[in-house]
């Protein structure tokens, strides 16, 4: 899906847990997620901490979307 959308000229950020697979399939902008059963959150955190975590993943993804890349790049969530 990542590749097909990019083929249509729209940049894509792939947020995924297993970044090596994302690299293998050819995504250009990759943001590491938390875990396979809960990629965009962490149920072991308090709701407040989890909200902050989710926001960080999202802002990292938005930053990645607006960043020029020369090749496949992983944007770590800070």
């Amino acid at each position: 899906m990542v590749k097909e959308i990019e083929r249509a000229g729209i940049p894509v950020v792939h947020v995924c847990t297993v970044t090596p697979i994302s690299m293998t399939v050819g995504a250009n902008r990759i943001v590491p997620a938390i875990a396979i059963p809960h990629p965009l959150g962490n149920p072991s955190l308090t709701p407040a901490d989890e909200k902050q975590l989710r926001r960080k993943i999202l802002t990292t993804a938005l930053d990645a979307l607006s960043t020029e890349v020369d090749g496949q790049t992983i944007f770590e969530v800070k």
Partner: protein
Amino acid sequence: MKLEVGYIQIRDIQTADKSSVKDGILYVNTKELEALALEDEHLKAVCFDVARPGESIRITPVKDVIEPRAKVEGPGDVFPGVITKLNTVGSGKTHVLQGAAVVTVGKIVGFQEGIVDMAGIGAEYTPFSATYNLVVDFTPKDGLTAHEYEAAIRKAGLKIAYALGKLGVNVTPDEVKTYEYPSIMEAIKKYPGLPRVGYVQMLQSQGLLHDTYVYGVDMKQSLTTMLSPTEIMDGAILSGNCVSACDKNTTYHHQNNPVIEDLFEEHGKTLNFCAMIITNENVYLADKERSSDWTAKLVDYLDLDGVIISQEGFGNPDTDLIMNCKKIEETDTHTVIITDEYAGRDGTSQSLADADPKADALVTAGNANQVITLPKLDRVIGTLDYTEKIAGGYAGSLEKDGSITVEIQAITGSTNELGFSRLSAR
């Protein structure tokens, strides 16, 4: 470690007033076994059936398959840390009721259990069509969570298999095999010219009912570690898996791991089988990195020449497989990986979710997406309620005439990545 395994050939299972093994017949008092299973307060009812090779029977949803075994001599007993006391197993003597199996049935997840056909084309895709099966169908008490239900079935199945195994303790086996697994130093001294070969067995540990237990420890909580292959024969590794039926290792697979059997067969002839390493397949990327680092570290530390790696399951564990392979190859150790494929129904899609040029020696156990039509069989043990939802099934799988069209993914053990299957290629 030295383990003597005595195989008692079982040629039928029959219900009787007294449980015993006599002249190759396993007689079972199901009332006694029912009482044993219902010791667990989570279970409401249990129902027994016998399914024999060639009978027109479909068993589904199958959870686990267990071979009845018990120890005759030596420290500990089978399934240590789970239903017997914690003790290091793998030495002494063990008796096996070969040809018999306990098949546990229950709708835990529903779509992640399997199908075993005792006759017809489906029977050719599962090894458990060739065993005499005591099928145990468990009904949980109301309000039980899936996790509690899984744990209850897992333990009850093991207890039944152990109770049956104990019936063979005083029976003279038809065949005895001895497996010797010396210390690494001894092994290297004994066969100085032979390549040192290890086996890295990957165990499903993704959580959410995709779990494997080692001496009672949930493998996702363990780092990569080592044990003797004879410990595995004594039930040190148990399946707690509700996952696609084709390539999960049931407890029976662990008890009879063909990679271990074949490495023992070649040991001292063409190779020196001197290391058994087990590792996990977790859902955090950091865990995948850490466990594969550890696998490669152990291989390097042991100075092995070659390693066989077997995977369990598919999808994200393909990454664990490739990480293990790549990192071990980087220690100048040759690897061969055993996996299966999800190459689409026409076989033209990418087979694995991950890949690397270093993974250049691979054995495939088949394409799990291959579609098959299973004819109607006379009897169903369990229920067909989940046939259209089972992994490999789809809306419309169950035809009006009672036949089922599914991917072979739905058949227990069809693409087993230990090679415990009958699939081959022309």
